[in-house]
């Protein structure tokens, strides 16, 4: 699919960019753990109480909106790019 959207001369850069951004996507998804409440350690002295506090923190937490909403923000950027820059179809489509 990638080679259809860019000239052959740019294919190596485009392919590498695509792989890089795919992995950044996975990284950002895993990074979501950093913005959530920290779970208690299982060997903590008052684990039961700590876990109740943790559950309450999760109940009040709103970061899930940002975690799920990140997709929407990125897609809006993609839609703007598609609307402003991609006026025509790929040359291969026109020629086949």
């Amino acid at each position, binding site marked *: *699919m*990638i080679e*259809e*959207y*860019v*000239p052959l*001369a*740019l294919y190596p*850069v*485009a392919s590498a*960019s*695509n792989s890089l*951004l*795919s*992995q*950044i*996507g*996975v990284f*950002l*998804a*895993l990074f*979501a*753990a950093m913005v*959530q409440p920290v*779970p208690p350690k299982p060997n903590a002295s008052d684990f039961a109480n700590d876990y109740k506090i*943790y*559950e309450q923190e*999760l*109940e009040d*937490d709103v970061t*899930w*909106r940002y*975690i*799920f*909403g*990140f*997709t*929407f*923000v*990125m*897609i*809006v*950027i*993609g*839609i*703007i*790019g*598609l609307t402003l*820059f*991609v*006026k*025509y*179809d*790929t*040359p*291969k*489509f*026109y*020629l*086949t």
Partner: protein
Amino acid sequence: MSNDDFSKSPNFRGKSAELESISHRPRYCNIVVFITVVCSISLNTNYISSELTQIKDLLEVKLNWDEETGSRNYEFLQAIFYVGACIGALIAGRIIVYGRRKALWYTLIILAVYGLLTQIMNFWAILFARLIAGFG
């Protein structure tokens, strides 16, 4: 393929201006467009496939899952994305003949719907959203 064949191609007819425009586009423009549009889809697809791994506890609390059904529902949410991807792969070939630009539009719209649907913290909404995200 000769020049005559190009002009006979059903997609090519009346599109010489478009091809002319593409051929004169600066190189940096192509890579910016590519990263903005195509790579954002790759980024989001991988993000969506991995995002649930970090919010299992949050889903358990928010959706009132008990220990027994929690794991099952969570695995179901993970798996449904790939079910959608299988269905999407079967249908993609039929959609792409209408144009790569249209295919990109459909994908972006589907992923935007995913982003909106998941703002409802409901099991069935997230399930449906992940199914169509996989499809996209």
